[in-house]
């Protein structure tokens, strides 16, 4: 098992900063997801780790040893590309055994390990087929088999599931998690899908415009985003502007046009500061109007949405998105009481 460390990594293409001053520490055997919108530099970062692109700044260390001078074939890594890139002129078995053949492993051993790994990816009996005779999901599993068979010290995956349909994607996600846990290979997984990142990763690194904005556990990124942009990218849709008051050990109050919202204590809160609070739709509770603990609101619209009810609730001029899992149902136009638990409110001071 290998620890991967990126130290101030940067890459310029002409006058484009594809990756800027990126620090990342990936613990032995863990899976880190690089998450970010298209063009934020995820692939470039992965290619630098693989040795397919040379950084213009910074260092890449495997077990605290710089690999910058090591060519890709000597880094002992495995990489699964965005498109599976199976060699079309080779059978499945030949594709899978490619890495072993390049390492000069003897034939009996190769045959044994190919059979073994094809069983793991549930493609026993497909060895003699050619890639063009496989479905997308099967091709993807061949690509993964081809990578894990060499027992790489580090596995890099570049949106390996983006070409699959939703159901297959879920199966493959579970499959990758199982495989990675079982083999304990340190893995960097690139994706622009936050659900995928949350489900797969031990830790998530969120990237915007070539910069790593926040690194943390899925729970941290999800519930305590560091910037408004991260919050937005992680699917928070409710933004409430206001001014902070009563900052103290017990938390603070955000005074808004629609009323006062209590906020959990945090270091960065300053009395009198303009701030924007974010609340996830599923963290807002709707109660009947006779409950006095919440803010007064009115249901604008309700939609049944896969096991939950999605409401749009108006508080004065402000419209909040609310997801309610309870069985109680409010009708359109009904007056309600809107309650937000302080620890679910995340406040960003105005820049």
């Amino acid at each position, binding site marked *: 098992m290998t620890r991967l460390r990126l130290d101030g990594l940067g890459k310029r293409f002409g006058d484009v900063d594809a990756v800027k001053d990126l620090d990342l520490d990936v613990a032995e055997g863990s899976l880190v997801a690089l998450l970010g919108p298209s063009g934020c530099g995820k692939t470039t970062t992965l290619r630098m780790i693989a040795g397919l692109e040379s950084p213009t700044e910074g260092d890449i260390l495997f077990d605290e040893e710089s690999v910058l001078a090591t060519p890709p074939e000597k880094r002992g890594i495995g990489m699964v590309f965005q498109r599976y890139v199976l060699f079309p002129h080779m059978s499945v078995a030949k594709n899978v055994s490619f890495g072993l053949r*390049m390492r000069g492993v003897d034939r009996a051993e190769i045959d044994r390990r190919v059979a073994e790994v094809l069983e793991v990816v549930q493609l026993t009996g497909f060895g003699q087929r050619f890639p*063009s005779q496989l479905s997308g999901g099967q091709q993807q599993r061949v690509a993964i088999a081809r990578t894990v068979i060499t027992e790489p010290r580090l596995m890099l995956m570049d949106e390996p599931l983006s070409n699959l349909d939703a159901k297959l994607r879920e199966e493959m996600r579970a499959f990758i998690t199982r495989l990675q846990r079982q083999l304990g290979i340190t893995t960097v997984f690139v994706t622009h899908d936050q659900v995928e990142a949350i489900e797969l990763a031990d830790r998530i690194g969120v990237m915007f415009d070539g910069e790593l904005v926040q690194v943390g556990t899925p729970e941290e990124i999800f519930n305590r985003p560091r910037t408004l942009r991260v919050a937005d990218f992680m699917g928070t849709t409710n933004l409430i502007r206001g001014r902070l008051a009563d900052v103290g050990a017990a938390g603070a109050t955000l005074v808004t046009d629609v009323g006062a919202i209590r906020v959990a204590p945090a270091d960065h809160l300053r009395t009198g500061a303009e701030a924007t609070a974010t609340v996830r739709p599923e963290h807002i509770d709707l109660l009947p109007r006779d409950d006095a603990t919440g803010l007064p609101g009115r249901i604008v619209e309700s939609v049944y949405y896969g096991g939950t009810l999605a409401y749009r609730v108006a508080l004065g001029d402000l419209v909040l998105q609310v997801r309610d899992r309870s069985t109680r149902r409010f009708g359109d136009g009904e007056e309600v009481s809107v309650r937000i638990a302080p620890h679910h409110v995340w406040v960003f001071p105005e820049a």
Partner: protein
Amino acid sequence: MIRQRRRGLGDRDRLGPFGRFYLTVVVGMVLGPFVPLVIGSFAFRWTWPDLLPSRWWWEARATARLPQGWDYVFSPISRVVESTGNTILIAILVTLLCAAISLPAARVLAKERFRGKSFVEFFLLTPLIVPEIAVGLGILVTFIQLGLAGTYWGIILVHLIPTIPYMVRVLTSVFQGLSDDYEEQARVLGASPLRTLWHVTLPMILPGLVAGGLFTFLISSNIFLLTFFIGGGRIETLPTLLFSRVSGGGALDAVAAGVALIVCIPGIVLLVITERFIKEEVFAKGFGG
């Protein structure tokens, strides 16, 4: 995509009436010119306005003073066998050298951007623009000084002049269609650059390489003027031999017709081989998918 295409193959030979007519015309136009050659090669006397020879080769065989048609072609004095050997040997070496020179050049032209690239691309085409006779005369002087005139290597070198532009063009477009991903994947899987070339790049560009090689072989085995200048009569290939027969005898006699048919053989054989090869070996395995 490949699978769908394969499923459609069953319908391939169903031609409409117009398709049939069109095919007949094309085949007629391609094969038509060969008919007089074939008949002529078997003739002893064939004069205008007879539609067929008045006397055939085998009828005159016992009485004729000179060997006729195919007898002559297969006799050592005709130098047909020798020139066929020369033609094939030279064409093979030219093809191999041409591929070896064009591969790296095409790769760079397809994948890299650099200053003066469009000039290099234009420069590579100039041999096709400058008349062969100008090139031949110019080079002959230099080659005489270098002692390359009248040698195999001299001929092989001049044959590279008109063939490299074709090969580079073909391979450049092949490389443009080949995504870098495959080579990068091979490297990541532990293949050195050389083994990547051998195990991944070459097999993947093989159809293009075969097509380019076929062109090169055919061009080389058909070059007359440059071979004539540099070979200087010492090294005879099929085109120069045919020329000497035609210019010597004036009209198309049985011997010239026979030689002319022999000249076609290397190309036809090669075409049949490579056509089968491209279809069965390469496309069967799902190339380009």
